[in-house]
């Protein structure tokens, strides 16, 4: 099962940082999100795009895990040579992650 089956994601820009929110479509799936979306796994998934630290804010009452991705926008919207300078499309990439199966 992929994250795409149980979550939506939205990204935004703050200077040279991207924000990434991942929200459970059904709040009952929030524990799966929290387990799947470790800082290490997200950092590895965005290798080659996110050059800096990955900061994570778990928000169980919103059934959401929120990230700040540092040095992720090639210098920021105003400077970037990228087609998607805002990093708006970055969020969708996280939905490609395989969800960790529940532990037995």
């Amino acid at each position: 099962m992929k994250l795409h089956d149980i979550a939506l994601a939205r990204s935004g820009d703050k200077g040279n940082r991207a924000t990434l929110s991942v929200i459970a479509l059904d709040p009952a799936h929030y524990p799966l999100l929290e387990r799947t979306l470790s800082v290490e796994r997200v950092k590895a998934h965005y290798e080659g795009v996110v050059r800096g630290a990955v900061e994570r804010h778990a928000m169980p009452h919103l059934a959401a895990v929120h990230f700040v991705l540092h040095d992720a926008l090639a210098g920021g919207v105003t400077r970037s040579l990228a087609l998607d300078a805002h990093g708006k499309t970055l969020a969708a990439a996280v939905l490609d992650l395989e969800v960790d199966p529940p532990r037995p």
Partner: protein
Amino acid sequence: MAQSPRPFRIGAGAGYAGDRIDPAQALAERGGLDALVFECLAERTIALAQLRRSRDPDSGYDPLLEARIRAVLPACVAQGVRLISNMGAANPAAAGAAVLAVARELGLPQVRVAVVTGDDVLDWMRAHDATPLIDCAQTVRDLGDRLVSANAYLGADALLPALASGAQVIITGRVADPALFLAPLMHHFGWAADDWPLLGRGIVVGHLLECAAQVSGGYLADPGHVDVERLDDVGFPLAEVQADGRCVITKLPGSGGRVDRLSCTAQLLYEIEDPARYLQPDVVADFSAVRLHEVGPDRVAVEGAGGRARPEQLKVTLGHRDGFIGEGQISYAGPGARARGELALAVMEKRLQRIGLGDRERRAELIGVNAMHGPLRGSDCEPYEVRLRVALRCATRAQAERVGQEVEALYLNGPAGGGGVTQSVREVIGAASALIPRAAVAPRCQVLES
């Protein structure tokens, strides 16, 4: 100010400078609103507007201002809806005069317009050029004569005199986006400027509304996963705000889109860094304990925000010239499209070396393969069509023009079957940030009447 027996109804009329106009008109006419807010300033907008103003002293405000005002002013006047917007950009006074001109044209001569200025701190920054820039090791001095604008993010306090003046329309330059919404709430409910938890709740209202349809079903649909009805007619949102700062987010009955836990959560967290510390000129808002409850169809109740004392300094955005970007694109399609696109990339690499641009910072990629998420994605796909894209950072316009010319020359000199060349050159206006002491920023309010 007396406590209102009914909630204050505040709507969003635009979430960015180019936003749709018809949903704003629908809200103005049928929303039963007390206030309608148009947020139209992105980070670089003022710098670009400043460049326009330097060529024409009467310009420098939002190019769509007249069209937006024309669409909503009749209903706003008839129903007593106050209209608040940062469409003044680099020239709020000219924008105010333009609003009056539209009012006269519509046969509404009694309209009073308040213009809020004081965000322009370019002179102060030039006089204090040892001020450090945020997120880099430079100072304002390092921007030299490339600096074109410096605007402080004013808070809701700067709008209170304009609201007290009774003006129908309030036009500003740079104001923190959520403050455009917080100000009428403070004015209506008489919230104290140091009631931090209350101001924090007002900021949540503003943050949820400031991107307009992004909270009411826009930017959400993912067919089969998250379905949204009628994106051609998404209803812009409004909030019904109580005197204690709690609110319900909703939209016009019968409009497209959706307002629910998912749409509101996505917007609540949008572009937030630490949810417990959302820095605003009026308050450090705390979203970490916000709760959302679906209380009816397309109705979400919001509560639980907090706040702490406002920051000592205000944030300033400094616009500066930052060279040029030259870009070219060409498509390849059918069997072997990717291989021909890759060959074209290799040819471009050698051409850029040959014409002396080989050392420039660049992106060279295939749209459809690896243009969005970097080198690690798309390595195994064989798309039916690909589009080569090369973009270079250049010091001069002439250099930047060479990039598109070289891509275009792939027509006759490159791989088979290239088509659909586009080329562009744009001057880059960079945005840097700095902090300024509050004492150096003096908001002013001028009331215009025809």
